[in-house]
């Protein structure tokens, strides 16, 4: 996949909503409601974004070139035709990786602080 010339770090830090939308779209393209469901599942219900926040975030992400609207549609008989599907762009993937690296670096600092000793901060591989 072609890489974008823009600097992904320029968009960091991402808001939790934007980062989770990127995560939800990491594996496959999805429509709005399934993105919401995925975010709820990813965060074990701790982050719930409503339809307005979702589409306000999507609006900004489209403008920043992080995601794009997918032209492929499922069979209209099996799907609500009002739905729109979104997928990550190459730049969106770079930004998601950069944000993950930033969070990982922050977590490394957290591990060195005595305040957090005893907390389970291990990242388990799924």
């Amino acid at each position, binding site marked *: 996949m072609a890489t974008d010339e823009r600097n992904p770090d320029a968009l960091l830090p991402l808001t939790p909503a934007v980062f989770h939308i990127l995560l939800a779209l990491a594996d496959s393209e999805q429509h709005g409601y399934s993105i919401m469901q995925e975010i709820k599942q990813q965060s074990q219900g701790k982050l719930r974004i*409503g*339809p*307005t926040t979702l589409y306000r975030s999507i609006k900004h992400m489209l403008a920043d070139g992080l995601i794009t609207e997918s032209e492929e549609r499922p069979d209209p008989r099996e799907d609500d035709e009002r*739905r*729109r599907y979104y997928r990550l762009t190459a730049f969106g993937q770079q930004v998601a990786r950069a944000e993950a690296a930033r969070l990982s670096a922050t977590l490394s600092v957290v591990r060195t602080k005595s305040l957090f000793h005893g907390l389970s901060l291990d990242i388990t591989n799924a």
Partner: protein
Amino acid sequence: MRSPWIIILSCHCYRWLLALGPEEFRSEYGEQTLQVFEECCRDAYQNSGIRGVLALWPSLFSEALTGMLIEQGQQSRPWWPCLLALTLILIPFYWLSAVWSNFGNLFYSIFATTTEHKIGHAALFCILGLLIFQSFPSLRNRPLSYSASMLCMILGEELIHKVRLPLPINQTDLLSDLIGICGAYLVIKLWQSAQQRVSAN
């Protein structure tokens, strides 16, 4: 298949809240946002019935309201700060006059007689209506939503005064407010038709 009444009602309320947002957002994302909201309602209804849908109202309605107001703010309409300032002064007017004597003296000196007082009420609500039309242009073609918003403001004002001061509801003031609100709507409609005539020529 017809949706349950609670979902239809919820979608109407949500659509009304989205109407507070800028035209640009509504035309591009309004239907999708509403469609996702409807799916949330259907899920909640399947799981917990009417109670489940009602439980969604506080979080999703407040989220929509704040989201649309932020979107409006980002459109940087110059009328927005004027609307906010006037609302903050007008709604708790009697209470503000009682606790801030300079403010009260100024207004009571301008609107000293009963007639001036009525004119003041009508004029302030007319200005408020015009500012609302400038800040939320979509309301220009939605007289019911406009009337509902303004009635909520009037009732809010009365409620604040009832709680803060033992004043009876003044029906003449209410009538003056309604005249002001209708006046603003007439001004906007006349202005719109004048604009249409100019563009037709």
